[in-house]
């Protein structure tokens, strides 16, 4: 009888061990969030927003600001990152080409155009703090039941380009208001090589217009 019990117990333990090992392997192999970033460009995003009540009519003209405004954070100036001006002309040219490709006519005088397009860039340093506990089990000697946490502080720099399109026919000089029927935001990590940064900016600006087909006057 005791031998039979011992046999059943050993089989049960073996089964528990097999299942436990399987569970451990699966949990280790799977993870909740598989997949990985293969390139910094995969962290780039393009966000566009439009006023659904706005009517895009043809022919339309635009005035493009001849300078990219580099904005700074005045509330928390320590987080500002100085952006290079080496890409300003590229940004202006790409935006102009995209508007022309959609059939807009460029005006060099700001007041005579239907739309005014502004370009603004912002560089920010972001901070992350991860807290983790280095030991499982009991106890970390000298700390009793308390496990001393480890803090990992990391930072990364991001750049954002804003393209804003204002409807000059809605200027309210008294109320100091103007409608903005479309805007785009390009965001990504800073610090790539000049050629890659150029590619990312070109791709991002083009994508902003590709995903905004309503901009094409009907």
């Amino acid at each position: 009888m005791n031998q039979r019990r011992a046999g059943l117990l050993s089989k049960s333990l073996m089964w528990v061990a097999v299942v436990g090992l399987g569970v451990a392997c699966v949990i280790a192999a799977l993870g909740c969030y598989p997949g990985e970033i293969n390139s910094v460009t995969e962290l780039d995003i393009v966000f566009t927003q439009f006023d659904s009540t706005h009517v895009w009519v043809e022919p339309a003209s635009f005035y493009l600001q001849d300078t990219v405004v580099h904005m700074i954070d005045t509330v928390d100036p320590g987080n500002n990152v100085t952006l290079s001006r080496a890409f300003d002309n590229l940004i202006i040219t790409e935006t102009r080409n995209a508007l022309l490709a959609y059939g807009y006519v460029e005006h060099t005088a700001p007041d005579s155009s239907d739309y005014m397009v502004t370009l603004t860039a912002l560089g920010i340093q972001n901070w992350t703090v991860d807290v983790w506990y280095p030991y499982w089990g009991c106890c970390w000697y000298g700390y009793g039941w308390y496990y001393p946490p480890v803090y990992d502080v990391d930072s990364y720099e991001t750049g954002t380009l804003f393209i804003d399109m204002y409807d000059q026919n809605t200027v309210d000089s008294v109320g100091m208001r103007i409608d903005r029927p479309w805007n785009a935001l390009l965001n990504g990590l800073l610090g790539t090589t000049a050629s890659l940064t150029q590619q990312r900016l070109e791709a991002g600006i083009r994508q902003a217009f590709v995903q905004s087909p309503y901009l094409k006057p009907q």
Partner: protein
Amino acid sequence: MRKIIAAVGMTLCLAAPVSAQDWFWGATWGLSMAGGETADYISEESWRNFGLEGRKFVSPKTSVGLSFNWTVLDEKTTEAVTIPGGAISGTQFRYINAFPLLLTGHKYFGDDEGTMLFVGAGIGAYAVERRTEIGLFAVTSDTWHFGLAPEVGLIIPFGWRAKGFVNGRYHYTSEADGYEYQWWDIRIGIVTM
């Protein structure tokens, strides 16, 4: 949720005294494929499906039990997402981590010593985390759902007290926080009975 836990507890408490032959224990691994609206979010199949099964035979051909599963559906896509008043594009990682905890009932057909067909269903709680990562941002939604999962499968003997297990089931959850989930499981595993 409390009602579900109470129902599961009642079932296990009312079960007959334990003997090795009365119980069915199993571990499974399998393939998941999203269905319905869930497939609009993640269309790729996933092999990240792990489950534990415990069943108690209340008669020679009928069992009740519990089923726990961990299913990870994921997809990497660059598809632009249209949102009200705009769009967002970039490389996205879309994840669904689903944890169904189901009270199950099954009926068996065939010889106990040979291959047995079973049909049944599970009903219970689904904890689901839906997470979309895009660029440096992530949006996460954690929800609890009520759901059910009809299933059909085979138990195939291959020696000792261990048997092979193959089943297919379809999960369908209620809506919570604007989301409802549907997916297929095709699972293989090892069971003892």
